[in-house]
């Protein structure tokens, strides 16, 4: 089959790879109809997560049609149109039963790597390096889906492919950030990052009853998109004083909830960007936590900060003093999608959650390297590039 593979840092190619096979009785094989770039792929693409091999298939956010099922798959059959959670989770271990699906004990076939790096292994993730199981990604014609009854969800007829695609990762990740950060009616919520996940977190905050939601970025097209499609306020950090604006817009208190949806390649307009960039390139720190610092600094006393952006390792100048002395609640997670996807599909069916505006560019799989280049460089207003490996 045809797939988009990682060939080395910032090198992608579309080439033939072996078709996936059923490896477990709870597996399914899905023919991929739509698969989309994610900001976290850029960390892999750029070589910031050093657990990739030449030939690894990228992609973890996708939708398709089941073409083969293992004998223990009970809830799905050949022909089902499904959206698949990006995390591989068994649904049976203690963490899954606590609805912390991305922490699954059984979904990662290479647990020792992350046990050494992080002290414990999270579940697996499609197309997200050998640290998270080495599962082939979704930028391919077909993909193997382990624990298919747990991770694949039948899409209601009234929800289009274009809309349901984002129930795979961006929408549940964003919803989880707002939910686990404790957003409640009346809150002022600030979201750093107007990419797909940041926009979905902002929309979730609106739907959870937040009084004001403020999205922060430097790209006007994304901020305009957030205003138009989500009904939220925005701040351009290259043109406005973020701290001053957040204080004024929250009655001098600071936001109740701050959600970081940027991750380890954060930008800023100040000298701190170069400070972190130099240290990251010299491997003195692995991640640039600029937005995380700002979220902590600007959060109100006793407020809540949630880290949704992907971080891999160690950061420098982390404002632990602010966390402690302001009595903040700091939390983060990879997405527990199985917990939210059914509810999100219902909201999509009712028209409450309409994320297809994120798909600014749709192209064939053959065009995927160009799509990633547009996505990475943010060319032509690219927010997300969607690939259609099969129709």
């Amino acid at each position, binding site marked *: 089959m045809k797939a988009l593979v990682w060939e080395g840092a910032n090198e992608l190619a579309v080439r033939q790879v072996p078709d996936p096979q059923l490896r477990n009785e709870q597996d399914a094989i899905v023919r991929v109809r739509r698969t989309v770039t994610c900001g976290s792929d850029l960390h892999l693409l750029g070589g910031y997560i050093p657990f990739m091999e030449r030939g*690894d298939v990228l992609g973890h956010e996708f939708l398709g049609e089941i073409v083969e099922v293992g004998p223990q798959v009970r809830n799905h059959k050949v022909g089902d149109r499904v959206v698949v959670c990006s995390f591989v989770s068994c649904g049976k271990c203690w963490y899954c039963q606590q609805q912390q699906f991305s922490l699954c004990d059984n979904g990662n076939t290479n647990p020792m790597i992350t046990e050494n790096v992080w002290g414990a292994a999270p579940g697996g993730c499609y197309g997200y390096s050998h640290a998270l199981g*080495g599962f082939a990604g979704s930028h391919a014609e077909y993909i193997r889906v382990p624990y298919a009854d747990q991770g694949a969800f039948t899409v209601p007829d009234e929800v289009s492919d274009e809309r349901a695609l984002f129930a795979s990762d961006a929408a549940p990740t964003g919803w989880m950030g707002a939910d686990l950060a404790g957003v409640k009616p009346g809150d002022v919520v600030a979201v750093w990052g107007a990419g797909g996940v940041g926009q979905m977190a902002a929309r979730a905050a609106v739907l959870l009853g937040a009084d004001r939601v403020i999205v922060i970025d430097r790209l006007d097209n994304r901020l305009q998109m957030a205003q138009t499609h989500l009904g939220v306020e925005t701040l351009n950090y290259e043109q406005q004083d973020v701290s001053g604006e957040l204080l004024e817009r929250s009655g001098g208190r600071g936001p109740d909830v701050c959600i970081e949806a940027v991750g380890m390649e954060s930008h800023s307009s100040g000298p701190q960007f170069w400070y972190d960039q130099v240290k990251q390139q010299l491997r003195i720190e692995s991640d640039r936590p600029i937005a995380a610092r700002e979220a902590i600094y600007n959060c109100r006393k006793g407020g809540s900060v949630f880290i949704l952006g992907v971080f891999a390792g160690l950061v420098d100048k982390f404002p632990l003093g602010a966390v402690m002395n302001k009595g903040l609640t700091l939390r983060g997670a990879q997405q527990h999608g199985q917990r939210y996807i059914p509810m999100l599909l219902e909201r999509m069916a009712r028209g409450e959650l309409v994320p297809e505006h994120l798909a600014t560019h749709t192209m064939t799989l053959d065009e995927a390297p160009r799509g990633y280049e547009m996505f990475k460089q943010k060319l032509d207003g690219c927010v997300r590039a969607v690939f259609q490996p099969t129709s």
Partner: protein
Amino acid sequence: MRWLIGGAVVVAGGVVARRLLGGTDQGDGHRQRGQARRRGPQWHVATVNRPAGDVAPGGQLPEPLAGLGDAVEVQLRPAPGDQGTEIAVRLRDGSRLPVAAAARRATGRDPEQAIRAALRESKQLIETSEVLHPDYPPTTEPTPMNKPLRMATQQGRREGRL
């Protein structure tokens, strides 16, 4: 950026080396400074999200652990906080030299690895009824750059806490 990848691979290789030479200190409450030359049998413990009756119905352990036979000592106890059952396993045989253990570990013949793999597989069998396999056939190819990572992955499938 290639040098950056190379540096990262060195780090990954270091992880492997640490694992090979240092062993799995987790859970080893017996090892102390000054006593490293010869170590007693180490307990390996995993928590299974099932009551003890499901872990060893009729006293019969799942095959990966039962296959270790009399070479190991097995204890079952309830996990606190209603988190299931803790399975603790250690070699019955006495102490071992770290250097010899490292050599066995490097060649995949360390009995401690067999215990760890048996625990992982037993936990998966009990909780999910099967052991999750990696994708096959692979889409990747071996290169000099990914050799340390492939070693780490191979090692990771032999042991690891989970």
